[in-house]
């Protein structure tokens, strides 16, 4: 179980995450939010890549707030697959083994489930976008993380390919039964993937009963923007 309590984070004077609390059980929790609302920042704090200003993070009741990323046993899947370019697909997926994580047998099973047997010896740059996403997911799952953090892993893909990948990913993730925190700005992706939903609006996280409701809240929040240009707090900096 992942428990986030009262998380806050500013960059300089810009408050990006505002007192966020969230509990994710063995489910896929999708957080919907616009560009720049703070989704990635939240995930990076949970992963330990960024330090928060306030708040606590508990994974399976263990307080990991002060631990570096390598001691948190979380899986992090970034937006661009960010595969290790100089390694083959096989070496990418087996990377965690070097640090004594994961198990060979599990990895074989993952490879099969994600249908990447045929590309194991290729370099990442020779892969299509869809396959890069699969390899990225496999690389992270191979390390047997206690929590999955996924930062729009499909948003660079074509709709047609996305349509095929989403059910696959859902199947794989559900099989593991660990908490998954999945952020996206795509409604249909949220609908197809998620068990439970939240929306993030300018650093504030709120629960929603469904993906549609979450999206509705977001849509409301931008009506101002559309009429009068970006308000100060919506500016990127």
């Amino acid at each position, binding site marked *: 179980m992942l428990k986030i309590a009262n998380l806050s984070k500013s960059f300089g004077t810009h408050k990006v995450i505002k007192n966020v609390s969230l509990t994710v059980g063995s489910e896929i929790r999708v957080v919907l939010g616009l560009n720049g609302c703070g989704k990635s920042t939240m995930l990076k704090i949970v*992963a330990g890549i960024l330090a928060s200003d306030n708040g606590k993070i508990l994974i399976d009741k263990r307080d990991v707030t002060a631990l*570096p990323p390598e001691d*948190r046993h979380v899986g992090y899947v970034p937006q661009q697959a*960010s595969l*290790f370019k100089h390694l083959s697909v096989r070496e990418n997926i087996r*990377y*965690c083994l070097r*640090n004594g*994580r994961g198990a060979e047998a599990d990895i074989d099973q993952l490879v099969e489930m994600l249908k990447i047997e045929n590309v194991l010896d290729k370099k990442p740059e020779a892969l299509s976008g869809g396959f890069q996403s699969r390899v990225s997911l496999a690389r992270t799952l191979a*390390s047997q993380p206690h929590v999955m953090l996924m930062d729009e892993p499909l948003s660079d893909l074509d709709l047609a390919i996305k349509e095929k990948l989403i059910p696959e990913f859902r199947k794989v993730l559900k099989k593991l039964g660990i908490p998954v925190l999945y952020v996206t700005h795509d409604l249909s992706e949220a609908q197809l993937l998620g068990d439970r939903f939240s929306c993030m609006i300018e650093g504030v996280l709120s629960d929603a009963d469904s993906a549609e409701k979450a999206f509705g809240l977001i849509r409301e929040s931008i009506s101002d923007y559309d009429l009068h240009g970006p308000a100060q707090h919506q500016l990127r900096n």
Partner: protein
Amino acid sequence: MDGSLMNKIMNKDLITILFTPLLFLLIIYPIVALLTNLEVPGVRETLMDGLFWDSVKNTLLAALVAASLCVILSIGFGYCHLFMRNSLLYKAANLMNDLPIALPHTVAGLALLLAFGRTNFGFAGPTGLAFTMIAVVLAMFFVSYPLAARAVASGVDQMDLESIAVARTLGDTPTKAFLRIALPALREALFSGFVLSFARSLSEFAAVIMFGGNVPGSTQVLASYVFTKVEEGEVAMAVTASGFCIFLSLILVVLVGQGRRRRA
């Protein structure tokens, strides 16, 4: 923008009026003017001089070691540039980085001599580190390091930071992530730093003579060979030896270029 129409049609304006003539006039023409001063007797005499070949050997050895040392230290600097941008150490290192470039070379040699000569490093031998091949390497390193550091820093600026974040979550300490993921991504930058600092090392003489000692056959390098030849008034031999420096540097550039192409 390879092979683009943009290229084919309108290249000729800014270049022809600005860059091409200046490049030829200021860089290529002097080198050509120099090479026309090569004379057969001077070349022959140089090539038959055993001390010349000793200095070639010393130069190659010392410059390769110095350039490698530059690369190693600049890797360390790259690490700071990546992970510790806000630390005091990094800020100091960044400010200090370029100082050796600005120091006149004779005095750079003096600085090294005072630092590693026998007053402070007497335990290392009767002359400290001075007047040994180690001294030659350190002198070359001192003047060349800033170039390697700059190259690596700009490589780090172009790197994919997310892949390092992923490596961390897969269990890597910063050191491991740096060595396994960042370093391979910096290959190009490291090559570039290596080539530059190797070339710079070839040309250094004032610091090398002062600290390295310039004993023919033992610590004399090409640049100090050139200097003594100029002092002797043997211009043709000096030009030959310099041509050799250029030759060495070109070979390195071409070798590195080929190695790069093969991998790609």
